[in-house]
């Protein structure tokens, strides 16, 4: 019992660490693409750890399935939208000389 709880806590803390890393990346990295990279990758990894921790904590097969699918869907959505944001930026940077920012 104790061990399970300890592992849960460790998983949650590791997840938090990755989220922090992602946020720091967003704050400190110099350009958009590296920021995107930091945010998407680190955050999804963090979510994975937190999902694992919670799955362990809740530990009912049905809920574990749901948690896994949540993680999977988030992965899918966030990677696609990351790609789209990057494309958006690229499209805007290349063809015209319009000023960035308002």
């Amino acid at each position, binding site marked *: 019992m104790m061990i399970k709880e300890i592992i849960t806590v460790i998983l*949650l803390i590791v997840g938090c660490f990755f989220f922090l890393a992602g946020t720091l990346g967003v704050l400190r990295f110099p350009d958009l693409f590296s920021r995107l990279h930091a945010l998407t990758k680190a955050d999804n990894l963090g979510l994975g750890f937190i999902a694992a921790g919670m799955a362990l904590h809740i530990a009912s097969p049905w809920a574990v399935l749901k948690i896994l699918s949540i993680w999977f869907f988030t992965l899918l959505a966030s990677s696609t939208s990351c790609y789209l944001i990057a494309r958006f930026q690229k499209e805007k940077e290349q063809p015209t000389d319009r000023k960035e920012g308002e």
Partner: protein
Amino acid sequence: MDGVFIFVIVFLLLNIVLGLFRVWRGPTVADRLLTTQLFGTTGMAVLLVLAGYLQELTLLNVAITFNVLAILLVISLFKVWKKKKGETP
């Protein structure tokens, strides 16, 4: 155990708030679009932890609803972007 959960939730929410600083600063529009990214992933994590904290498994349904519709949003965004590409040379 509850203390850990609360700590994690507050930590994640603070993460969002910190990330919002970037959204506020910009400088590019795409940077501001990161909010949704940030919120999507971190918000899901918060929901998961809340599910454990409140002992309420139905919260997972909320998370799944969000996720499934997020896919719809992404595909819609894809279409918007394609349309724009088609229009502006």
